[in-house]
Each structure stands twice: as C-alpha cells, then as structure tokens.
C-alpha cells in the first residue's frame, strides 16, 4: 500500500465518521445525509481499489481518469444544489403561511381580549 492511499483512506473514513456523528447527535437530518454517505463510501472504495478509477474510465471511454472524477463530482454537486434550492423554496412557502396564520390569530386574540 502506498503512502497516498493510506492518507486518502484515513481522510475518507474520518469524513464518514464525522457525517455519522452529525446524524447521531441530531444536527443533520437523515434525508440530507444520504448523498454525503454515498459519496464518502465511493471515496473509501476507490481509495482501497486503486485500479478502480482506471477501470471505470476505460469502461466509460474516458481517456484521462481525473476527468471522470471532475465530471462525476460536478454533476453530483449540481444535483445536490438543486435539491437544496428545493428545500429552501419549501421552507419559504411554509414560513409565509405560518407568518400569515400568526398575524390572523394574534388579531383574533386581541379582539377577544377587548370584548
């Protein structure tokens, strides 16, 4: 095993442990952690299996293996960002409804107090 392999294995495992800890302590919700768990698992697999990158690139017809890494990583980042925008939009609309209900209820409450 080469030095760089040991470093990448160590780092990916550390990252995986960090993500798992975040879920256990309740700081990260499971549904948002899926993508992190999958990507760190892929990292761990490819750190052990050094030839893997070359094999997969060859199958997909990509000449330079690093290109595969960038393509896959950027694609996943875009998908995840879209997922986050979706969550923000949902939160915003829920927040709006809650604010409106709050204002209406407060008015009702104050009217009852006056009577």
């Amino acid at each position: 095993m080469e030095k760089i392999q040991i470093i990448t294995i160590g780092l990916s495992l550390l990252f995986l442990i960090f993500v798992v800890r975040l879920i256990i302590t309740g700081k990260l919700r499971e549904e948002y952690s899926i993508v992190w768990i999958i990507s760190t698992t892929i990292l761990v697999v490819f750190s052990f299996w050094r030839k893997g990158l070359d094999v997969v690139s060859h199958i997909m017809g990509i000449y330079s293996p690093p290109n595969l890494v960038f393509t896959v990583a950027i694609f996943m980042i875009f998908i995840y960002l879209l997922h986050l925008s979706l969550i923000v939009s949902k939160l915003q609309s829920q927040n709006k409804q809650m604010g409106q209900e709050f204002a209406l209820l407060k008015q009702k409450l104050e009217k009852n107090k006056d009577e």
Partner: protein
Amino acid sequence: MKIAVIVPAYNEENAIASVVSDINNYAKSTALNITVIVVNDCSTDNTKNIIAKLKCVALNLPINLGIGGAVQTGYKYAYENNFDYAIQIDGDGQHPASEISKLLAAAVHEGFDVVIGSRFIAKEGFQSSAIRRFGIQYFKWLNRFLVNIIIHDCTSGYRLINRKALKIVKNYYPDEYPEPESIIVYSLNRLKIKEVPVIMKERQGGVSSIGTFSSFYYMLKVTLAILFTFLRIKFKKGN
C-alpha cells in the same frame, strides 16, 4: 354587503394615518359597510403603534413577507370573515378613497369579478415615470400575448375583487411584485376582469417597492413568474 379595504403597509408611518382616515371618511359619507384592514408587513418604523390607534383591523406580520404576502394575509382575513368584496389600496396615499365608487359600480352593477383602477385610460392625475411606463407597456403586451386581454395599467395596486376571486387568491397569490402576475391567475381562472379609469396622486410617503436599480430584476422576475404561472395553471387544468 360587506366590503374590506386592504391596505398593505411597510414603513408607512407618515402616510398611513391619513390613508385610513380618508377611507373611513369615505365610508361615513357614503354609508357603505367598509372595514379597513391594515396589514403591517413587519415594518421597522412606528407603523405598528400608529395603526393600533386607528379605526381599522390591524394585522401585524411577524416576518417581512413582501407586498404579495401582505396583501394575501388581508385576502385571507376577508375570506374567513365573509366579506363580499375586497379592495386593495396602497398605504402610501397614492389611491384616493373617493375612487372606490367607480370600482364598486363595475363589480356590483356590471357583475365583474376583478376591477382594476387604471391611471391610463383617462389621462388624468399623476402619470408615473418613463421607465415605469415602459415596463407597463411591456406587461400589457405580455398579458395580451398569453391570455388575450388588454389591461393598460397592470401594475396598478388599486383593485377590487369579489368573493369568487378571494377564494382563489387566498390559496395562491404571488409574493413579490404580484400585480401583473395576478392578472394571469385571474384570467386563467376565467374571472371577468374590467379596468376602470381612476385618478391617482403622487405618493405622500414611503418608497416604491420597485427601486430604480432593481427595475431590470423586476422585469425578469415578473416575466418568469407570469410564464410559469401560465404554464402551471394550463397544465393543472389539462387544456
């Protein structure tokens, strides 16, 4: 006939009191059953304390929702409390209450669901800036292209809707810059829309919700919103 007059207010401490008393005086002189609903969109100035002392229903939003969210809060109140008509009047004093009669006449006697007070049909009163007029022309063209109705002043916030329209907007009303977009919503829901000429004044206080620098963003955002609203309603109905 219960009429709600909804006044969205964001930092309108200078103008709001006169706007509300203008409407209340109008109600008194015409003996109409009008309730003023002021929606305070989480103002950072003294608006909240001022409206608490006025003769109106005060709805104080805990977070800033923007003009659309604020107006929708008023619409929800009007719907839940069984009002027959809801009229929107801007909180900055641009819309004189005396023009309510013109909107009301079109709804009550001619049976229109949505009545928009326009400053362009009859060229009277304050006519707004050149860039804004250009935007209004553009939206007029866009509305005509999509739903084939001609509204000369689709950015006008002076409008009346009846209960049929209230039922729609209590569930869906655009957040940001709602005026041009809501016309699409109304017409795709097959509501009858009419534009009547009204006289408007220059704003007495506050700043426009559309700044000079954000004009471009405004056009882009509203264009997108109009197109997507159009597609959404078209697809939902399956026609």
